[in-house]
């Protein structure tokens, strides 16, 4: 049957060339997303034919899927746009004003929250829930098993007390203690997060005084790529900068830990590589 490959090709073309047509695949719901974290999950799990629109941030510097996002219409977070696009489901990030989502829920749009997941079980549960909601459960399981495999690959062999220490700083001076996805990433990569041991928990920062007394083996920093380096807390504070200059500073791209999502594994792998370098230097 020589006609068959041509028929398949035509079908493939028909599917790929109608990325926004609502009738392209009747079994998959159409999905729009508000906010960076929701965009990341939709772009990670969604089928191209089902993505109605993503936020403008999805093509920005903090988006891991910036290139993929360019193929889809951008929304400005207004309910009108979601209704006009015919979306059945709205994925909405934690940080986004819930008014628009609340309005949409009144008009029959299924609103799915994408909370900030702060540990690996939460990340898996969130991924599974979003995948199920948008009809992509298999894709969700694939992402989760990939995440588990990659985490296992970098899992540290040494006991915890032998791990090098790290402190995380954001440009605004905030850090990450217990109960944050940054802490989960540092532990997964085999770093002892000193802020988790000293406090404060969550997103406050460690006082410089403690760093002067007990400097960490490395400083992990992020979001410095999207904010001015010169004005960051590390540079602004001469005492802190004095310490930081004598230690490796691992700069994690903001797009890897924009949210607590499976993307965090990218940050973990970067940190784990840094740890290997550090341990190799120690051995020599």
């Amino acid at each position: 049957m020589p006609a068959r490959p041509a028929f398949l090709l035509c079908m493939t073309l028909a599917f790929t060339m109608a990325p926004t047509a609502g009738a392209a695949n009747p079994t998959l719901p159409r999905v729009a997303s508000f906010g960076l974290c929701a965009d990341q999950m939709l772009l990670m799990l969604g089928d191209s034919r089902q993505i109605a629109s993503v936020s403008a941030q999805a093509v920005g510097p903090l988006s891991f899927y910036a290139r993929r996002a360019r193929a889809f219409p951008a929304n400005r977070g207004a309910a009108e746009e979601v209704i006009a696009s015919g979306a059945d489901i709205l994925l909405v990030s934690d940080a986004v004003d819930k008014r628009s989502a609340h309005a949409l829920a009144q008009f029959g749009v299924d609103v799915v929250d994408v909370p900030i997941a702060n540990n690996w079980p939460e990340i898996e549960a969130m991924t599974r829930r979003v995948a199920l909601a948008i009809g992509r459960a298999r894709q969700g399981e694939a992402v989760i098993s990939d995440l588990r495999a990659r985490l296992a690959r970098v899992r540290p062999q040494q006991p915890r007390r032998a791990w090098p220490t790290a402190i995380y700083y954001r440009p605004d001076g905030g850090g990450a203690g217990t109960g944050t996805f940054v802490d989960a990433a540092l532990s997964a990569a085999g770093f002892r997060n000193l802020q988790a041991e000293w406090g404060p928990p969550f997103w406050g920062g460690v006082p410089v005084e403690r760093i002067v007394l007990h400097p960490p083996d490395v400083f992990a920093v992020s979001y410095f790529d999207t904010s001015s380096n010169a004005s960051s807390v590390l540079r602004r504070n001469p005492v802190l900068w004095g310490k930081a200059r004598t230690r490796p500073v691992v700069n994690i791209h903001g797009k890897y830990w924009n949210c607590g999502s499976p993307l965090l594994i990218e940050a973990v792998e970067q940190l784990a590589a840094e740890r290997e370098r550090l341990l190799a230097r120690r051995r020599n």
Partner: protein
Amino acid sequence: MNRLPAPATSRIGTAPLCLILLGILAGLMLASLTIGYVHIPPGRLVQAAFGMADPATTTIVQQLRMPRMILAALVGASLGGAGAVLQGLLHNPLAEPGTLGITGAASLGAVVALYFGLAATVPMSLPLCAMSGAAIATVILLVVARDSASTLTLILVGTGIGGIAIALTSLAMNLSPNPWAVSEIAMWLLGSVKDRTFSEVWLALPFVIVGLAALLAAAPSLDLLSLGEDTARSMGLNASRLRTMAIAGTSLAVGAGVAVSGSVGFVGLMMPHLVRPLVGQVPSRTVLPSIIGGGALVLASDIVVRLIAIGPELQLGVLTSLLGTPFFLYLVLHLRRQLP
């Protein structure tokens, strides 16, 4: 109603001015329906307004653009009317709803709902908490207004309430568990009527109507008060009743407005000053034009934030503050020149 002769500075009657402003308001209301995030041609827009277009377009026009238009006008009318009455009541050209701390207290109520996560689980808790905040401030103000004879005390107490509200709002932001919660509170404080629905309209409307009625009822007595508190009292003015009406009216109208839209600054300050050169210095004559004009001003601002088609939508309070602060400075400098 007119107990005082019209001063020479009056350039236009109150009635014609109100008609002109109503015309502008009506025009802006229509314009507001045509502007949004989705282009809808005029023909379809009319069909949708009467429920005869496709369901999506009808929902957009009837359930999103109409409530947004109504709320913008209501919020502006409340602020304009309250500003006009308070400037007359407090003999202070810089008075506005914020002066009495009502805006701040309502905002604090909303921030409490956001901070404790009530707003995420029960969306209506946010406006209800904001109204409770306004109600608490009102009770304090009314007690002061009844017990104290001085207008100055009222201003000082209002400033104090506003200060406490700002302090507690800052505390909530300071204690926020993560940076995202701070941004949510900050954005809400900047004010917006984006994506409100009729449930918010029905919540605010009764309070705004009663509040505006109280403000209009208080207006005529303001003229007597402009002769000085003692003279006014000797002419039979019941000053504490006037204060009660003005404070209750402001709380109801502005409190309900803040509850659904966040705080929209400077409209209450600006509007009476824009109207005054046209109607003269008689306080009562500024109230109705300020109500209509305030509605038009906020509606126009809400149209502008939607017309700026790049980046995230500007919050309404940001735009009114951008317009209002230069005006405020001008006012201060202008008043200084007028002083002997």
